[in-house]
């Protein structure tokens, strides 16, 4: 509906979005499976501990199947929904499969920028960038799953652009 950026007044148009790194899908599959395994274990424990009206194993199997299904279906959809753009004067992000949100962080409002390397991120060679503002709601914004070098580059760039003051 709105043309991608072709020069001119960049700020008033929706930018062309950059995707996250493809391995984000793997990262989210692993975290979803991990969480699913935890839930399955709790369900299994519950089944063993209490006498339930359904045969033992049914609920555990259901939980495991749901976890695997979620790990297959959700991460690619989430990957497709994610996009961001480093614009001249702000950071633009869009994310969310069902509940979609679009955020803009003006550079002058960035308090500081971090990169975040979780254990799984590191193993996959990924890193996230975390942007902090002085606001209250939606004040901390994360771009997850970028290539580690790219994340550092983005962090440095945002930090450099934000060097205009932090007083509120």
């Amino acid at each position: 509906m709105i043309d991608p950026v072709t020069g001119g007044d960049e700020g008033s148009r929706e930018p062309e979005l950059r995707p996250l790194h493809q391995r984000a899908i793997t990262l989210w599959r692993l975290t979803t499976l991990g969480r699913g395994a935890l839930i399955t274990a709790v369900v299994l424990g519950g089944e063993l501990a209490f006498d339930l009206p359904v045969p033992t194993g049914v609920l555990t199997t259901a939980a495991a199947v749901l976890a695997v299904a979620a790990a297959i279906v959700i991460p690619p959809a989430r990957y497709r929904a994610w996009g961001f753009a480093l614009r001249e004067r702000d950071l633009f992000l869009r994310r969310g499969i069902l509940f979609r949100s679009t955020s803009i962080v003006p550079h002058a409002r960035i308090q500081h920028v971090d990169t975040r390397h979780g254990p799984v991120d590191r193993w996959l060679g990924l890193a996230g960038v975390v942007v902090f503002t002085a606001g209250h709601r939606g004040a901390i914004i994360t771009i997850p799953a970028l290539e580690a070098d790219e994340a550092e580059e983005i962090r440095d760039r945002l930090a450099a652009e934000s060097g205009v003051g932090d007083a509120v």
Partner: protein
Amino acid sequence: MPSEGRRLHGFTVVSRGLRLGRQLIVPAILGGASVGEGFGAAAQWTLVILAIPSLAIAVAQWLAFRYRLEDDELIIDSGVLSRRRRVIPLDRVQNVDLKRSALERLAGVAELRLETASGGSDAEAGLAVLSLDEAHALQAELRRRRAAGVARASGAAPDRPDGAGRDAIGPQERSVGSEPETLLELSFSDLAIAGATSNEAGLIAAGLATGVEILDDLGGLRQIDAWLESVFTQGAALGITGALLIGTALVVGFIILGWLVSIVATVVRFWGFTLTLAGDDLRREYGLLSRHQSTVPLKRVQAIRIEQTLLRRPLGLAALKIETAGAGPQQRENAQGGGAEAYVPITRHSDVGRLVRAVFPDARFESVAMNPVHPVSRRRSFVRLAVPIVLAAAVTAWFDTAGLAAAALLVPAWFFARAQYRARAWGRIDGYAIVRGGVLTRTNAVIPDRKVQTLHLWETPFQRRWDLATLMIDTAGGGSAARAVDLHRPTARQLLLTLASDAEAARRKELERRPHLSR
């Protein structure tokens, strides 16, 4: 680390002790009484004995606490075992509050609180308690040094070439020496009306009813209990109508009582409320028993909320919340008195413009045209209410066909949805965004572009279906972020982009004009 600087007033220990007493001994007595004789007494003694070392710690903490002003910084040393030094640059201070509880007034002492934008759970620097003279002296000194710091940072301000432009900035650049201007004074009747028209009256009534119930459970109110019982038996003797009548009378009684409590509480809390503009600072003073004096630098104001409760709207009355950065979530919960929001309990609607302009002198509200949100919003609001009503009606009808009567709630739900749609609107004037909403309490949020932190657009699956979106404008202010709910999606997207670029531009302009802000 050498301990220099001044100590707090000795009354600190007394007030700490009294607070301990409130926290430990009162529950001990109440709890003990409800548990029963033998065990209760033991519990009481345990708590009393526990209080003794705490008192000793309070004395040690008082001895260890030192503060001093050095150049542009307030330095506080504290801590008995692990020493802590806190250095607060004065130009980062958001609010300065002076508070005196009834007891502190008798003792001639005061609490001084300084807040910065860090948003921690406690005030950045709480000096509790100082002698009154010391507190006033420190307050004046803080003001003087902050002003001096600002003047120095702006350089040779008076002979800058853009002197004409400075006038447009208005009071934010007024010299500190200028005469304070009284913006608002509230009389007894103003406050009584404020209490009578607040939405809280109903809440207080509910609170009172629960309170009576709890006391009843604790066996504290045997007489009331007996009285209620006799009333109920008499009512029951009259049959179902009698019981209903008694029930209604009790509810009405609680509502009237809650109303009275709300009036008294407001009058006591905000007694002698004055709002003054002194140089670059907005000052409030209020309180009958505990007296508050708070100072908010104008340039720190993040947003203003104009709130009108249901009862205040026809009377042409409103309350104002002047939001500043610098208080944690815990404080925001009960921020009515100070901290994150400088609260103006009531004012005539015709005065609102004058007050807002005192804070935001460049706002041109005459030109504002409020835009309604998308009409589909009404349908969405109604569906959101209707779904639980229909479900509840269906479930109750399963047991008894009379349950279908619950579906009658759909009628008020439809009116509520319509009211909600009419309440929602947004507007844009040069340099400011205005967002309106709320049925029970109608809120107009005025947000300067230069204070916008981040902007967000939310789209739920249902909103996407009807091509709607919610725009959220976040500031560092104490209240919740302003939301323009259910805008037409293309409008919302365009507004998001426009606001973002205006916010960035306004922020840069402000930094160029007042470079000291960037420090």
